[in-house]
């Protein structure tokens, strides 16, 4: 990542013809998806529509039945571990913090593995990342079991940022959080994107996150994907997308969107 956002027309990540099957059920039916550098892309869809599997496919944790994922034009499985670590940061749904390590040790782990920096320097960097995600300095010595749900997400985000990745993948960053904490996380995502120029991909069914944070939304319905801005998707004729964006819950989120855009 860096503040210099490149103005390339080529997408930073592109998936072509992704097919995923589980038994007879086809979850993804030749899905194409481009992620532009510097954008915030939301991936939405009903429960069981294959959002998380798509995310795992995009970051190379799941091998699709067919299709390919390219990052900067390179197939994802040809990218070395170290380069991948500096390219991609992932926030898993449950945080996936290592329970035997403290928050600061969690954040320092990737640095310890992939850089030769002295420990004191690593500690400084970890402290800044922890502060950046809104955690207090004294929570750095705490262990994951001692953290609340929102703090776990923040700590996991700090770890995902450890190597300054160019892309950040977030799996349900606001699920299981109270609305205030969820809004704070939304705000944090925007700050990382606008301030640091990190490309963000969010898997979520939190309408407020989708409508207030994301530049574009990709909706998975029946194994197919529809990508567009909120305005474009709102005019869609697909019944699921229409219900999703015009249902009672969407009304409040739309208000939040107008409110936010008014401020910006």
């Amino acid at each position, binding site marked *: 990542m*860096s503040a210099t*956002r490149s103005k390339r027309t080529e997408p930073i990540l592109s998936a072509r013809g992704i097919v995923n099957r589980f038994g007879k059920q086809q979850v993804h039916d030749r899905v194409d998806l481009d992620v532009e550098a510097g954008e915030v892309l939301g991936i939405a869809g009903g429960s069981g529509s294959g959002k998380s599997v798509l995310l795992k496919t995009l970051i190379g944790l799941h091998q699709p039945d067919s299709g390919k994922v390219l990052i900067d034009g390179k197939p994802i499985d040809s990218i070395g571990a170290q380069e991948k670590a500096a390219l991609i940061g992932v926030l898993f749904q449950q945080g996936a913090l290592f329970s035997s390590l403290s928050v600061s040790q969690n954040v320092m782990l990737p640095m310890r593995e992939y850089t030769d*920096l002295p420990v004191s*320097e690593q500690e*400084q960097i970890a*402290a800044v990342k922890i502060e950046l995600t809104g955690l207090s300095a004294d929570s750095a010595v705490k262990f994951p079991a001692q953290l609340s749900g929102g703090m776990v997400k923040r700590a996991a985000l700090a770890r995902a940022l450890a190597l300054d990745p160019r892309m950040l993948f977030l799996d349900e960053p606001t699920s299981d959080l109270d609305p205030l904490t969820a809004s704070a996380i939304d705000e944090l995502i925007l700050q990382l994107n606008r301030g640091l120029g990190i490309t963000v991909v969010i898997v979520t069914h939190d309408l407020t996150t989708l409508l207030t944070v994301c530049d574009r939304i990709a909706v998975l319905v029946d194994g197919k994907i529809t990508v567009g801005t909120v305005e474009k998707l709102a005019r869609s004729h697909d019944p699921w997308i229409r219900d999703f964006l015009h249902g009672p819950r969407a009304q409040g989120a739309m208000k939040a969107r107008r409110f936010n855009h008014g401020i910006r």
Partner: protein
Amino acid sequence: MPGAHSQWSSPTLAIEGNDDRLSLDGVLGIRTLDQARQALERWRKQRKSHVLDVSKLSGLDMPGAMFLCELRDKHVELAGVQPEHEALLELIGGLQRKPLTKPPAVPRWRQLVIQLGKGADDFWHDAIDITVFVGRTMSAFGHALRHPSSLRPASISRQIAETGINALPIVGLMAVMISVVIGYQSVAQLRPYGGEEFTISLIAVSVLREMAFTAEIGVMKAREEIDALNSMGLQPFDLLVLPRMIGLIIALPLLTFFADIMGLLGGAMIAQSLLHVSPSQDMERVREAVGVSDLFVGLVKAPVFAFFIATVGCMHGLRVRGSAESVGRETTRAVVKAIFLVIVFDALFSVFFEKVGL
């Protein structure tokens, strides 16, 4: 950093210029930070006024920005900052950048004392917990005896099947094996195969089975099923602990008897193959050598061990808090504690039977 990916193998940083004005060319990032710090610290200390030209930087990441902010704080003037780098510097500069708080270091000898104290405290609490748990079990037993209808025959018989019948193959195999080993070691004198030796194999098996108690109840606890039972006014004690306990108390003596038989079979096999004593001769010798008391000792110990094994297993299951890792931890503790208790009570039994002359 843009550009960093194409030169991933070695992002480079060149430091040029002289005297008061240096310029950075390349990528200032996590991988070039060490180099930059070493070169610039020396320069900063030698000179009085400093200007650092960063206009040629092609990449800057957070650690790099931290370093530049640090220099700026130490009165190094940054020249030619690109607007996108300025945004990052502002973001980082706006943070407090406090060092990590570290827990105060405790000397090794004090840690030892603290651990010893904690260990003793844990032991004390464990002793109280077990006593309380045994008391509650007894009262639940008493209640069940007065109201036999509150017993759950279906779940008791399921527990007997799980701990008893499913354990038959492994218990049988172990009994045969052990008697073969003992047979080999004392071929000359056909030692009596009392119930004694087989309790060992039985205890091993039942302690392992007890892991299932802890894990089952622990997972239920972690998933709030125990709370759900409580909220319905149902007693987890009656529902979960008693059936397991009664089941094991019934199953373990039966298993003991089965293991005795299998052990005698193993003895007969070894007698036949090594000493050429026919099975019928062997049976007669066994009848002479083995008294009823040998069988009795094994059968008396079994329910007592069963009681303690089930107690420890269930108690640790109910101690699980919230997470999956807690289930694993409690299971391990339960097994260690059960083995400890069984050995202690085995020793007490030996002394007792010696005194009463059995």
